[in-house]
Structure formats: structure tokens, C-alpha cells
């Protein structure tokens, strides 16, 4: 046993395990591991090397060609005798997606390659110190015990990659092509047009006018919707939680109703309620002797209607949250305030409001972000109408997201829609990142 140790140490003095392992690993993934007597790991990595070679030799050139050219042969109809036949050419969109996947795979393979070299180096170093390298079972057990989070995270990470990152990259790429309903694959090939579409949006008057108008309204809407929903909920929560209010449970249940009804249903009902001629609202106003209000047909009123409707569906959620927060505020604070002779207003301003804001501020930011993208309510209640003749494919109450929907689904202007999508993405991710960075969890993580 002792002899063994001495021999090992002698060996380690003579053998530069590190160097040899690294050189071997550079030649091919897994060779270094085999040399380090980690056979299973070595074989797995060798298999990766084979996949890598295959990818780089057979797949990557075609993928890069596809991404760069977006195809070269058009799909054509050829007449054979009396019959036409379709000769399939390249499908630009598929070439783009495939190219993306292959290029990403290539990057991952390169990453694994560098990692395997590092691993060979580390294990070599340990062997030089005279330690026994782990066998595969030990490695597996080690990973399952100490690196378990990585293992579990790998699955959602793959999901994020394919269902979030890839589509976003794809969308960004589309903004640089001429992909419109007049230029649809497979009959046509797409081309890269650089920043032309961005230029068009800002230089063609109709587009830029629409873009600024819709952008401005999107922000105004997000602010109004968030503020009304929050303060409405706050006020109602205060009312319900007042001392001396009886049947608190009943009120709470009643007030949560608008939230409990699916938005789809509420919006369709509200659409009828706000109908300028037949809607009950205008009927009642008529009974009082007030002229009917063009709830949905006048641009300004339609915006007001949207905010009102949004208030109706969004105040219950914030009311519930705030009721929860209110019950956590220690009562002795209020008692102390009472002794000091504070008025009800002062108590609200100096005790209740700060306590609520402390918990609600991050949620407010998130609901603001959500309202920027509040597709459902606009689409269902006004569908962006009333139409605005000066806008390009948008109405007065369209948000960026509903305009994007109209551009792609109704007008087939996919490249313009992608540009709008990029703007939305920048706005939202900016807010989201800023919000996450402000959270306690993140700050503590950094320390």
C-alpha cells in the first residue's frame, strides 16, 4: 500500500499527464479522457466528436449557404404534356430555421470541445498530484449529488432555447428580409434587404406617423391602465377593510366577481353595454336626459372606454393583494397614531400607503409591462377601431401588439411586423431586466 503510493508519486514526477491529456483532447474529444483512464466519459465524448465532425463537414456548409443566400432555386410549375407539375425549389423560411439550428448546434459543439479539453487538463493535474481519477460511476454519482441543479435546469434550458430564444432570433432575422404576402415562399425566394424595412418605417410618412401615434398611445394606455387598476383596487380595499363594515366576506366575494368571469366573456358583454345606440348605458343616460355618448365610435371616447373596461377587469386582483397586505400592517402603529391625534387621511398617507407600496412596487412595474402588451382587451373590445384614415393598417386604439397582429395576420406584412416585434421586445426586456435587478433575491445573489 505504502509502496504503491510511493510509486504513484514517482510516476507523477516523471509523467506530464496534463500536457499529454490536453494534446490528445485537442486532436479529438475524449482521447484525453481515455488517456486519463476515464473510459466511459471518453467514449461519450468521442461520440460527440463524431457528431461534431459530421455536423461541420456535412451540415454546416449547407446551413451557412442557406442562411447567406436564403435559397437559389425558385419553385416552378412545369408543363408536362397536358399537366403541370410542381418542381420544388428552396424554401427560404425553412432554410433560415434550419440554418439557425445548425449554427447554434455548431456553437454548442465548440463549447463542449473546449470544456473537454479543460476537463482533460484538470484530471491530468489531479493525476500528477497522485489522485486516482474518478471512474464513470463516481462521476455520475458526483453529478447527481453535487451538480443536481444543473441536471434539472438542463431540461427547461432546452425549452427556453427552442421556444424562446430561437423564435426571437428568427423574428429578428425576418425584419431584415423582404418577407411579405406578395413575396411568399415557396413560390418566391426571400432576400436579405438589410435595414430597408427599418428605414421605411421611419421615412415613409404613413408608416412613421402610424408608428409614433401607436407607440404614444401604447404608453399612455399602459400608464392609465396600471394606475387606474391599482388605485381603484387600493381604494376599494381600504373601504372593505374599514372598521365597522359588516359582512366583509360578502363584499369581498362580490367585488372579486369581475375577475372571476373570463375576460373573453366580460369583453363581449361590455361591447354590447357600450354600444352607442342599443347599449344599456346610453339608454339609461337617455332616460336621465343626457345625450348618448359615442363610447366606441369616437377616438377619444373609445380610449376612455378601454381604460374603464380595463379598470373593471383589473381592480379585483389588486384589491385582493392589497387586502392581504393591509392585514399584515401591525395595528399598534395605528393605535400609536391615534394617540398622537392623527387624522384618518394622515394614517393612510403615512402608514398604510408606504406599507402597501413596499410590497406592491415591483408588481406595479410588472403590470405596467403587461399592459403594454395587453392584446386581449383591445382586440376583444374595440379591435383597434375606430379606423383612422391616416394610419397604415391601424386604428385609433391599436396598441403596438394589436397592430403587429393586424400587420402579420390580416395584411401579411411580415417584415414590418417583425420590426414592430423587435421594438416591443426591446421595451419589454428592458423593463423586465430592470425589474429583476431591483429585486432583493437578485441583489443578495450578487454579494
Amino acid at each position, binding site marked *: 500500500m505504502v509502496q504503491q503510493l510511493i510509486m504513484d508519486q514517482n510516476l507523477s514526477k516523471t509523467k506530464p499527464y496534463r500536457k499529454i491529456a490536453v494534446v490528445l483532447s485537442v486532436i479529438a474529444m475524449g482521447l484525453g479522457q481515455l488517456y486519463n483512464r476515464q473510459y466511459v466519459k471518453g467514449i461519450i465524448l468521442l461520440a460527440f466528436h463524431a457528431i461534431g465532425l459530421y455536423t461541420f463537414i456535412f451540415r454546416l456548409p449547407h446551413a451557412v449557404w442557406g442562411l447567406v443566400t436564403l435559397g437559389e432555386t425558385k419553385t416552378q410549375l412545369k408543363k408536362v*404534356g397536358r399537366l403541370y*407539375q410542381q*418542381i*420544388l425549389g428552396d424554401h427560404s423560411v425553412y432554410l433560415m430555421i434550419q440554418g439557425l439550428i445548425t449554427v447554434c448546434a455548431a456553437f454548442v459543439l465548440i463549447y463542449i470541445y473546449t*470544456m473537454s479539453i479543460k476537463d482533460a487538463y484538470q484530471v491530468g493535474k489531479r493525476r500528477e498530484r497522485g489522485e486516482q481519477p474518478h471512474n464513470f460511476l463516481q462521476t455520475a454519482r458526483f453529478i447527481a449529488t453535487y451538480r443536481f441543479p444543473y441536471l434539472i435546469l438542463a431540461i427547461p434550458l432546452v425549452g427556453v432555447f427552442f421556444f424562446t430564444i430561437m423564435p426571437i432570433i428568427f423574428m429578428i432575422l425576418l425584419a431584415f428580409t423582404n418577407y411579405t404576402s406578395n413575396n411568399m415562399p415557396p413560390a418566391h425566394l426571400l432576400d436579405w434587404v438589410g435595414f430597408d424595412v427599418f428605414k421605411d418605417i421611419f421615412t*415613409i410618412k404613413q408608416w412613421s406617423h402610424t408608428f409614433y401615434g401607436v407607440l404614444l398611445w401604447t404608453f399612455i394606455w399602459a400608464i392609465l391602465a396600471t394606475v387606474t387598476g391599482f388605485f381603484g383596487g387600493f381604494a376599494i380595499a381600504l373601504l372593505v377593510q374599514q372598521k365597522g363594515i359588516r359582512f366583509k366576506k360578502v363584499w369581498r366575494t362580490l367585488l372579486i366577481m369581475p375577475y372571476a368571469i373570463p375576460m373573453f366573456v366580460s369583453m363581449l358583454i361590455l361591447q354590447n353595454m357600450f354600444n352607442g345606440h*342599443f347599449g344599456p348605458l346610453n339608454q339609461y343616460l337617455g332616460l336621465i336626459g343626457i345625450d348618448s355618448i359615442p363610447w366606441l365610435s369616437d377616438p377619444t371616447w373609445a380610449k376612455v372606454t378601454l381604460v374603464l373596461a380595463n379598470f373593471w377587469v383589473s381592480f379585483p386582483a389588486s384589491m385582493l393583494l392589497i387586502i392581504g397586505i393591509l392585514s399584515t400592517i401591525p395595528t399598534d402603529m395605528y393605535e400609536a397614531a391615534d394617540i398622537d391625534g392623527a387624522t384618518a387621511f394622515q394614517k393612510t398617507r403615512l402608514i398604510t400607503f408606504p406599507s402597501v407600496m413596499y410590497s406592491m412596487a415591483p408588481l406595479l412595474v410588472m403590470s405596467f409591462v403587461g399592459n403594454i402588451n395587453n392584446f386581449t382587451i383591445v382586440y376583444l373590445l374595440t379591435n383597434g*377601431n375606430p379606423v*383612422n*384614415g391616416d394610419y397604415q393598417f391601424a386604428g385609433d386604439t391599436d396598441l403596438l401588439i394589436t397592430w403587429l397582429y393586424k400587420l402579420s395576420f390580416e395584411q401579411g406584412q411580415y417584415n414590418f411586423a417583425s420590426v414592430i416585434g423587435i421594438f416591443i421586445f426591446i421595451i419589454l426586456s428592458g423593463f423586465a431586466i430592470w425589474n429583476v435587478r431591483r429585486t432583493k433575491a437578485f441583489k443578495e445573489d450578487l454579494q
Partner: protein
Amino acid sequence: MKKKLGLVMLSTTIMLSLAACGDKTETGATNQPSNATNSQTNTNETGANDELKPEPGAELRFWTFTTDLKPFTDYALKEFEQKYNIKVIVEDVGYWDSVGRITTDGPAGVGADVFGLQTPDVAKAVKAGLILPNDYYEEETKKVNKPDAVAAASYDGILYGYPWNVYTFGLYYNKELVKDAKLETWDDIIAFSKQFNDVKNNKFGFMMDAGNSPFDVAFMTGYGGYIFGDNETNVNDIGVNNEGSVKGMKFFQSLKEILPLELSDLGVRGGLWEQGKLAINMDGSWSIGANSKLPFEVGVLPMPKLPGGDNAKPLAGSTGYYVSSYSKYPNAAKIFANFITSKEMQIKNNELTGALPAAAVSESEPGLRTDDLTKGYMKQIASSHIFPGVPETSFVWDALNSAIAEIWKGADPKTEMDKAAERIKSSIANQK
């Protein structure tokens, strides 16, 4: 170091799934240019005089709007399967959704072999390479159907479709409410509505989906207006602001007198009509089936004369069936498309569902429905204006809708129509 190992494992997992996904897309319906030879070489190349034979083992997928057409599709499929012994699977996809669906489903290999398209979608489908021409049955199709329906199913001089119906707009009237009022001109309709209207109790003499521009074009065409010149084919000649169109829009504006509602409030039209509170309802021929089932008697007025002009000419389009260029069994699909759009089948379809045949048949053709609705519409079709089918049409409705919204609010028709024409022009100029 162990951390690095973890990362290796992590990337391994990603790598494996990447490889899997990469393979999946590879085996999709895409073609490498290297082997972009004919992916659909038919085993039996059909010469000039050979009979078209279905591919052995053919199985077809068929998209149509089954909600209305179920009685007919059931009948037609049974006949077809008996005759050719080819199985057909029906899926409920409206003609207006077909283009969008086939764009994605076709290349993925799960699209229909035969699907329905309406006039405005044909150009889109051709431009995207989604449909095969109607080659083998071309002569037969042209012989059987009305020239307008054939034109609607063609693009750039090549016939693609197998037309089976025509549709247009007309005036349904509730016989119990109208009784024997004289309704020969639009002035009559206005006079009738003035005395019939009871806005407080939601009773109206006349209603239409005024915010929906395809309905309103009827007034423009009645004074000689049009959308595109040369019978809706020349996109460089935009007629939405010519004298006739503006005159038509002036008349349209005057209708607000008898229809004192905002455009966004007109969604109640269908409900009022069914409750018997609306006397004259402008709607499409696709509602014939629904209107023959109402509790009161319904008739169809031919579009009346406009003051100082011709009769209002509503747009008329045609629906046809088309063979997907992604079909694995193009021959069987062509045989099927032709089979269900033959003259006999169109007449049967009218009998079962009320659809108006695209075939050149007279009103008295044996087998056709003989009720007022069908008769009225057969007359209406004869004096209608062809639906524009050029791809640029998609820019038209949006611009017109905006103009119509302003005109309804009381803006000057000339100014608004000029603006609309300008918008259509700039959209056409800016399209890439």
C-alpha cells in the same frame, strides 16, 4: 473543476436534443437543391390524350366549410367513394382560412389535397405557389361555368380552380313588415324607412353592414364607379375616387338619415332581423340557407335603382375548390375537385344547401330551388360587379373602411375618397 463537469453534462443534454431536432427538420418536406429534381413525379405521366388515373392507394384530405355544407359534402363524398373507391377525410376549414392554413400545413405535409378559396385569395395562393393549375379539366370547367366564375378562378391567364358557387349581396326583406310597399328604387326604400323607423323601439326599415366596405361598393358601381380599371384588373387605374364612386358615396352618406346609428353599433343587425324588427336587410347570398329557416317569410329584392343612376351593382365573387401543390396524390385530387364541382353536383348543392351554382344555368334549370330567395339571387348575380381578384385588392378594403367611417360621420365624400385612392396608390407603390 466539478462545476465544469456539470456544465459538460448540461451541454450534453442540450446537444442531444439539438441533434434530435436537427434531424427532425431534415426529414421534413423540404428539398435540398442538390436533389431538387421532381419530388412529385407521377408514375403515370399523363400525355395529351391519356385518361387521368388516380394514383394507387390515394387518400385525400378535403377542407371545406362544413357548417353550412354538411348535407352536400356527405352526399358528394358518398358518391365519390362509390365511384372511385378513394377515401376522403373532411376537415372543417372555412374558405377564408384556407390560404393561411395551407401556407404552413402544406410544406409540413399535413395540409389538405383539395380546399376551397374565395376570389380575393386566389392570387395570394398562386403567388405563394400553393395551388396547381386546373390543367386536365380546363376545357370542361370553362364550358360548364360562367365566365366571371372562371375569371375568378384564374390568375395571369392560367385557370387554377374548379368553381362551384357564386356569391353576391342582396336585399332580404321581411314580407310581413314590408307588406305591399312599393320598393322599386332606393328613394322608395328611404321613403318606406322614414315612415317605418321607430328608433326608440329599435325598429328599422333598412339596415346594412355599412362599415364593411365590400357591401358599400354597390353604391359606387351603380354610378359607374369601380375599384380597379379594365374590369377590376388594371391596378394603375384606381376608380374609388372617380365621379361615379364619389356620387355613390354621397348617396351612401344620405342613408344615415334612415339609419341614424354609428357604424360600430350596427353589429345588432342580425339580431334585429331575426326578431322581426328589421324590414329590409342587406346581406350576402351565403345567408340563403339561414334565411329560409326563419319564422317569417323572406323575399329578395333585386338591388333597386339609385337616384339619377343605374341599379346598385353589388360585388359578386366565386368560391372554387383548388388542388394543393403539396398534394401527394395530385391526380386523385384533380379528379375529386372536378367531380364535386360538376354541373350536376352544383345543382345538387343548391338543392341541399342553397348555394348558388357557378355553372351557367338558367333560373328554370330542373333541380334548382324554386323559392323566392334563390330566384331573386339568380337575378341579382346577372347584374352585379365582379369582385377584384388582383393581389393588390388587400390594400383596398382597409383604405375604403377608413374613408367610409369618415363619410358616415359627415365628412366630404370627395375629399375622403381622394384620400383613400391616395392610400391605395401609395400602398401599391410601397409594396415589396
